[in-house]
Structures are given as structure tokens and as C-alpha cells.
């Protein structure tokens, strides 16, 4: 419990900054909707006329930009990227920082096992990404609701946020697994964010080029696509299964490698 408390305290500031960032992102993003609102269907038409590559980069595709929730679907991609960056950095950092700051010689000579240390740290990280997610959820419901004029959007936002949470979980364990596997603590965080960036670019590349469609299983950013979630009102079970498999495998990697390896002091 003490490590958990310590981690919550250590991450408080960063969590606050990320939360303010995401509130700002939702508010300013939805704020732009008000300027589009008047143009109505013409926005959809304009988008449809754009080349596919432009649509892919904007993340639009088949979303109805004239409705607040459709517009929010475009914004969701960026919120998800933010959440994923936060999760990956948090995961890599929370494990590797003890070695990077050489505090591992303090912590691991205490009467705790490495497993229980990871348990506490993962729990703290989990609570952190959950708070991030709830902040995003609350600000999204408030902002989208404001433009939806009476339509209840909580259901759709909830579904999107559940998707985002699974995405956060995946990137969290990508971070922890890298930190557990990789001996160079200083580079673990940059490697985790590097992988994230690669996966994100891959997901855009898949949108741009239909030939790459088969690669969509390799990037978690394709798993929780706002288009699919909003149009179908739920998740693709194949992606859910893949997510579970990834989270499980990477968690095991985190524990197994961290327990086995020499601390780098």
C-alpha cells in the first residue's frame, strides 16, 4: 500500500497537467463545432469532396460531422492518442524510474518481492489512467451535451471512453513490458513513445492505402475506431479478443522479465 500511495503522490502533478490538457482539448475541439454548426450538411459535403488521404489524416471518413457526436468522433482520435501517450509514458516510467534514479537500491532491499512492487505500481498506474479517462469522459459529456441540445449523448460517449480505456490499458502494459525487458532505464520511455508513434502512423497509413488493410490487426489504434463504435454502437469482438490477448501477454512479460533480470545500478 505504501508504494501505491507514493506513486499516486509522485504522479499527481503529471496527472493534473494531463487532465487540464485533455479538458482544454475537448473544450477547444468542441468549441470549433459551434462555428461549423451553422454550415450544417455543407460540411459533410465539403469533407466528402476532399481526397481520401486528406480525410484519413483528418480522421473523418464516414462520420457525420453535422451532429455533435459525429464531430466528437473526429476529436476522439486525438483524445485517444493523448490518452495512449500518457499511458505508455506512465507505464514505462513507473517501472524504469527506480533504476534511472538509482532508487532501486533503496526500494528492493526492503522486505518486498519484485512481484508485489509491480503489483502496487501497476495498481497506481491503473488508477491514474482511470482518472484520466473519467476526466475525459466528464468533460466530453458536458461539452458534447452542450451542443447536442437535449439529445442524450452519455451512452455514445461512454462506449467511446470504454474503448479508450482499453486502448490506455494496452499502451500502459506496452510501457511496463518495455521497461521490464529493456535494461537501459533511461531509454525505456522514449522507446515506448517511439513504438506508439509508429503504431499511430501505421494506423493512418492503413487509412491512406487500402493495400495495407491487413495490417490493421497490428496497431491498437485501429481497434477502437470512432466510426465503427458510433455506427455499430459497440465493439468488434475480434478486436476485443486481440486487446485482451495483448494486455495479458504484456502483463506476463512485465512480471516475468522484471522478476528475472539483474537490476541495472
Amino acid at each position: 500500500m505504501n508504494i501505491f500511495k507514493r506513486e499516486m503522490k509522485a504522479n499527481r502533478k503529471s496527472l493534473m497537467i494531463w487532465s487540464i490538457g485533455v479538458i482544454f482539448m475537448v473544450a477547444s475541439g468542441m468549441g470549433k463545432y459551434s462555428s461549423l454548426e451553422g454550415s450544417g450538411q455543407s460540411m459533410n459535403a465539403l469533407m466528402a469532396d476532399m481526397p481520401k488521404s486528406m480525410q484519413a489524416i483528418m480522421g473523418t471518413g464516414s462520420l457525420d460531422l453535422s451532429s455533435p457526436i459525429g464531430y466528437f468522433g473526429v476529436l476522439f482520435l486525438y483524445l485517444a492518442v493523448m490518452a495512449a501517450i500518457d499511458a505508455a509514458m506512465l507505464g514505462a516510467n513507473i517501472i524504469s524510474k527506480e533504476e534511472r534514479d538509482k532508487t532501486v537500491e533503496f526500494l528492493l532491499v526492503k522486505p518486498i518481492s519484485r512481484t508485489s512492487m509491480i503489483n502496487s505500481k501497476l495498481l497506481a498506474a491503473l488508477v491514474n489512467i482511470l482518472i484520466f479517462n473519467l476526466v475525459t469522459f466528464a468533460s466530453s459529456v458536458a461539452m458534447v451535451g452542450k451542443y447536442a441540445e437535449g439529445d442524450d449523448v452519455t451512452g455514445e460517449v461512454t462506449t467511446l471512453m470504454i474503448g479508450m480505456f482499453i486502448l490506455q490499458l494496452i499502451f500502459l502494459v506496452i510501457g511496463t513490458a518495455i521497461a521490464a525487458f529493456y535494461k537501459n532505464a533511461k531509454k525505456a520511455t522514449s522507446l515506448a513513445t517511439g513504438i506508439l508513434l509508429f503504431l499511430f502512423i501505421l494506423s493512418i497509413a492503413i487509412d491512406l492505402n487500402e493495400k495495407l488493410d491487413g495490417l490493421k490487426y497490428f496497431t491498437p489504434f485501429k481497434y477502437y475506431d470512432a466510426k465503427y463504435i458510433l455506427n455499430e454502437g459497440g465493439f468488434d469482438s475480434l478486436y476485443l479478443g486481440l486487446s485482451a490477448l495483448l494486455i495479458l501477454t504484456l502483463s506476463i512479460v512485465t512480471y516475468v522479465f522484471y522478476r528475472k533480470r539483474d537490476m541495472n545500478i
Partner: protein
Amino acid sequence: MNVIEIKNLTKMYGKARGIENVSFNVEEGEIFGFIGPNGAGKSTTIRTLLSLIYPTSGSAAIFGKDIITAAPEIKKDIGYLPSEVFYYDNMKVIDLLKYSASFYKKDCTKRIRELAEIMELDLTKKIDDLSLGNKKKVGIVQGLLHEPKLIILDEPTSGLDPLMQQKFFDLLEKENKKGATILFSSHILSEVQRLCDRVAIIKDGRIVTVEKISTLKENTYKKFKVETKSEIGMEHFNVEGVNQLEKDGSTISFLFRGNINSIMKKIAEIEIANIWVEEPDLEEIFMHYYERED
């Protein structure tokens, strides 16, 4: 009873040597010195004992329990002071000590105050504002606050001024009298000589010898310098056990190892004006062990 038992412990870093076939025991209640130059493998041995790193082969037990499988249990009764102390920077001293204490299932508040007073440590300061010596003090308090049965110290005196060193040594001796076993690693011989009962000398990852400090001294030479009244030939001292025989006017000097009585008889046979007999200090013994191995 042996508090630490190390059997053929080997640690390789890839192909690079860490330690090879290190074996020694530390008995309950003793202050055991672990001595060798930088890079000889002292920290590697200690970090292996603390399961921060894992041995390539061999095994070790602390309190009779395996260092790897029983690690969390063993560590309840170990206090460790690393050679360089690193802590969470944005914490106050007292917060760090409380955090440290929270891992042990006992109330250490009183003990923290006591130790901080002895070591003259300001508990309200932030850790990143502390000097190297003060950080070391935090390390000392942190390592002793749960009254461990085994205290492991890795180069503990670096950064402490002589006055603080003295206080720290007194503290260690007090802990030792209360029953704590101490493993004291150092490359400074005088401090080991002062504190320790027995010592293991490590060189290039291998244990050269494990001896009582007193035996170490007995088994080595004494330095003799004899000033004679009348000039005599130095062949007089050319007997077994004598070497580096030198003569400078009426002064003859040599090193002697063996039965002290035989050399005293030799000296008694002649008329002498003055005599100096010197105990070699550990430094010289140490060099002797090192040279012999080469």
C-alpha cells in the same frame, strides 16, 4: 551460527568478470570486514546477497535462508547502506524515512528521532538540498531505523567528515554490542582495522584470504632496526626468517617473520645502542597479499 554463508558465488556480466567462486561465512555478532580495491567485486557480492542481481552460479544464505527464494523475508532484518545514496528528490528527509519505515511492521518514529539526533541530521530539509555528506547521513538513519539484525555497509564512510565518521563508528559498535552482525565493505584499511574482527580480502573478483585481523598481523613480518655500539657484520642476522637485510653504518635493518624468540636471542648476543621494532600496518599487509598473488 553463520548469519551469512556464501558458497562458490560467481557472477559474470556477459563475458566480463564480476566475482568468481567467492566463498566465506560471517558469524553472528561479528563485525566482518570486506576489503579490496575499487572494482574488485565488493559491490557485486553485496548486490548479489541483496538479490538486486542474481548469481551466475553458486549460492548464498542469510539467516540460513536462500538469498533468492527467501529474499523478502530475509530483508526484514537487513539494513543496507549503499556506497552512493540516491533518493526521491522531491521528498523531505522525514518523509523519506517514514516511507522507509513503512515497509517494516513496527513503529520506528522514536528510533528515527534518536538516530537523527546522533547523526545531527535535519529532518525537515528537502533531500535534493542536502550535501553529499548529509545524504549519507540520511542513508545511515535509513539503514538502521528498523534495528536490523544484519547491517550491510558498502563503502559507508565516503562523504562523511572525520567527526561524523567517529560518531558513525560508535553507533555501529553500539549496534554490534546489542547483537547486530555487520558486514563492512571498504577499501580503506584503517577503518576496517579499527572496527572489524575478521576480514575477507578480495582481488580481481576472487577471495585472496579470510583471516582474523589479529592473525593477519601475527602471521606477517615485523620491521626491526638495530643500532649497534660497535660496527658488526650484518651476516650476524642472516638467519632463517630474515629478509631485506640492510646495513647503514652502525644501523642494521631487516624484516623478520617467524618465532620472535629466536631473533631476540640473536639480538641479545650483541651489544646494542638502540632498537626499533615496528608492527606493519594493514596497508603493508594488504600490499603484501596483493604482491604475493601477482
